C-alpha cells in the first residue's frame, strides 16, 4: 500500500480537518419534482460523522440510502438544510469545486463496480489518478501498489470483462483508494457478489479503514455486514430513524 497522504494538496485542503468531523448534516433534505409529483427522498436528516469512523447506512429500498450517499459524495446538492464536509458547506459550492473535492478527498465504490469496460484493470485505477496531474512514473507506481494491495497485481492487464465480480470490485476499491482519499463512500459494494467474494470485499474495506484511518461510509442491505461498522444509521422513508448522533453499534445486534 502506498502512503495514505501522498498528495500534499489533500493534506492542505482543510487546515481544521483534524479538529472537525468529516460530515455535519443539519436538516439535510433532497426532493425531486415539484407539486403533486414531488418526491422527498431524504427528509431533514441531521447527523455527524467523525473522521476515521466506519458508518453503515441501512434501510429498505427507497429509504434514501443512495441519495444520502450521493449528497455525502458531493455528487448532488441538498434541496434543503445544509451539509458540511470538514467544516465546509457543500450546498454553496459550484460544480468545479465539487469536482475538485471529489478528486482530492473522496473515493467511491459502487454496487455495479462501474469500471470502464475498454480499459484494463491498471488503466481503470489510473483513470482515478490522471486528473491529479501526477507524473507518469509516480502514477504507475501508485497503480501497481494499489493493485498489489487488493491482491490483483497479476491481473493488471486484464479487461473488466476478463475478471470475476469480486476481482472487479477489488479493482474499483483500488481505484477509490489510489488517490489517498480521506473518505470512502461505498454503495452496496457486495450487492453483486456471492457471499464468499462479498466477505472478501468487506474484509478488504474494513482492513483499509483500520490501516489507513479513512472515514468509511457503507450503504448495505445486509445486517451482518452492517455489524462490522462502528455505527449504523437506519433510514426509513427518507428519515433517519436511529444512529444519527452517537455510536450505537449495539443497536445492530438488537
Amino acid at each position, binding site marked *: 500500500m502506498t502512503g495514505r497522504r501522498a498528495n500534499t494538496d489533500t493534506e492542505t485542503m482543510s487546515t481544521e480537518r483534524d479538529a472537525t468531523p468529516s460530515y455535519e448534516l443539519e436538516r439535510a433534505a433532497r426532493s425531486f419534482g415539484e407539486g403533486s409529483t414531488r418526491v422527498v427522498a431524504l427528509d431533514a436528516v441531521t447527523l455527524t460523522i467523525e473522521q476515521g469512523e466506519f458508518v453503515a447506512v441501512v434501510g429498505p429500498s427507497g429509504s434514501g440510502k*443512495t441519495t444520502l450517499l*450521493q449528497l455525502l*459524495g458531493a*455528487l*448532488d446538492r441538498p434541496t434543503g438544510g445544509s451539509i458540511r464536509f470538514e467544516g465546509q458547506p457543500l450546498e454553496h459550492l459550484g*460544480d*468545479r469545486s465539487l*469536482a*475538485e*473535492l*471529489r*478528486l*482530492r478527498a*473522496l473515493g*467511491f465504490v*459502487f454496487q*455495479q463496480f*462501474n469500471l*470502464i*469496460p*475498454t*480499459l484494463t484493470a491498471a*488503466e481503470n485505477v*489510473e*483513470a*482515478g489518478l*490522471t*486528473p491529479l496531474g501526477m507524473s507518469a512514473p509516480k*502514477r504507475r507506481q501508485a497503480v501497481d501498489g494499489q493493485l498489489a494491495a487488493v491482491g490483483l497485481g497479476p491481473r493488471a492487464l486484464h*479487461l473488466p470483462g476478463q475478471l470475476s465480480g469480486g476481482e472487479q470490485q477489488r479493482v474499483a476499491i483500488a*481505484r477509490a483508494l489510489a*488517490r489517498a482519499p480521506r473518505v470512502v463512500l461505498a454503495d452496496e459494494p457486495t450487492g453483486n457478489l456471492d457471499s464468499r467474494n462479498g466477505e472478501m470485499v468487506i474484509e478488504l474495506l474494513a482492513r483499509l479503514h483500520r490501516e489507513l484511518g479513512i472515514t468509511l461510509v457503507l450503504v448495505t442491505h445486509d445486517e451482518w455486514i452492517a455489524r462490522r461498522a462502528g455505527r449504523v444509521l437506519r433510514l426509513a422513508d427518507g428519515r433517519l430513524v436511529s444512529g444519527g448522533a452517537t455510536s450505537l453499534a449495539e443497536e445492530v445486534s438488537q
Partner: protein
Amino acid sequence: MFYVRYMLAEVRRRRGRTALTALGLAVGVGLVVMLGALSKGLDEAQGEVLERLTGVGTDLAVSRPLAVPNDDAPGTGSADPFSGLSEEEQRQLERENGEHTAAFNYSDLGEPGERFSEVSLLSSGLSFPASAVATIGALPGAKDAAGGLTLTALRVEGVVPESGAAPLNPHGEGGFEFSETSVSGVDVRKPGLAIVTPDQVTEGSYLATARDRAMGEALVDLGYARQNGIAVGDSVKVAGAGLEVVGLTRAPLGGDGSDVYVELGRLQELSGRHGRVNGVLVRAASVDAVAGLAAEIDRQLPGAEVVTAADLVDRVGGSLDDADDLSSKLGTALAAVALAAAFLIATLLTLSSVQKRTRELGTLKALGWRQRLVVRQVTGESLVQGALGGLLGAVIGIAGATTIDAIGPTLEASVENPSSGGLGPFGQGGITAGTTDVVLGAPLDVGLLVLAIGLALAGGLLAGAAGGLRAARLHPAEALRSTE
C-alpha cells in the same frame, strides 16, 4: 499519455460503433472525393473540347464582317462604321468587296465554245491592314496577336457561251461548274496562335518556320485530302501556284477549318492582298483581361467583330454539357446531401454512444474528472473516428475515381451552327458543326484528398461537439443512477 490511450482503447474496443461512425463519414467523404474528381474530369474534358473549338491559347478572334447595316436599330443604319476610315482604306475595302459582285466578261474567257477554268480568291469578310495586328497586339491586356487571311478559291469551269447568252444549266452539261476550296494564310512565326496549329497535324509536319521555305509548302485538311486523293508529298495548286503538301491536319471541331493552309505572305501575294489580313487571333494576358480587351478592340477597329472563347462555350452541347451540368448542379447537391447525411449519422451515433455510456461518464465525474476533461474525451474519440472515416473515405474516393478512369466513359460534345449564319468566330466562314467524343477521366489531386480528410475531421468534430455537450450536461448523480 493516458487520455490518448483511453481514446484509442474506446475506438479499438468498441469496434462496431467505430466502424459504423467511420463508415458513415467515409461514404459521405468518398462521394465528395469521387464527385470532385469527376467534376475535374468533366472540366478537363470540356477544356479539351473548347481547346479544339478555340485553337490553342486563343482567347479572342477579330474579324470584320461584310454586313454593316444594323437591322435591329432602325434609324441608326446610316451610322456607317467605316466612315471613320481613311479614303485609301475605304477604297481597298470597296475593291475587295467588289469582287463578290464582279460579273464574268465572257469575252475574257476565250472564244465561244472553248472550255475555260477561272479561279477567284474571295474573302467572306473585309480585311484589315496587317498593321492592325501589331496595334491589337500592343493593346493593354493583349499578350500576343497573329494575323490570318482566309479566302475562298472559287473555281468556275465550263464552256465559253455565245456572247450574251447565259449558260443553259449552271451545273450541267454545257453550263458552268463551280467548286470552292477554302484557303488560309498562316503566320508561321506564331504557330501556336495560328489558324491551324502544330497540334492539329495528324500526318507529316507543320509548315516550316522559315518563311522562305514555308512559301512553297501547304497543309491540307484530312477530310479534303481524302476526298481529293491528296497525300503528304503531293502538290496542290492555289491560284495557279503549285505547293508541296507537307502535312495533313484535323479540322477543329467548331473552329474554322480550311481545306488548305499556306504561308500568309504567299497567300497575300497570290490573292493580290499585300499587307492585308482578314482575321486576327489574340491571346489575352489573363482571363480577366478578355472582356476589357474585346471592348478596346471594338473601339479601335471600326466594324470589327470580336468573338471571345467564352462565346463558343454556349455552342457546345451533347452529353458532355449535360454531364457538366449534372456535375455542377446535381453533383454538388448530391455531395452536400451525402455530407450532411454522413455528419448526421456520425452525430447521432456519438449521441447514442454518450447515452449508452452515461454511467461511465458519470463515474468519471465521480472520480473528479472536470467537465472539460469529459468533453475533451468524447470529442477526442469522435475526432479519431473522423480521422479513420477520412482515411477510409479517401480510399473509397480513390477507388471510385480509379474505377471511373479504368472504365473511361465516353461523352459526346456537339457544336451547332450559329443561328445568325454567315461568319464564324474567326470571320472566315461558318463554324464546323459536328460532334466529338471525349473520354471522361476522374483525376485526383492531393488537395482533394486533404479536403476529404478535413471534411471527415470536421464531421468528427461536429459529432464530438454534440456528444461532448450532452456529456457536459450530465449530472453526476443522475448519470450514476442510469441503468444503461
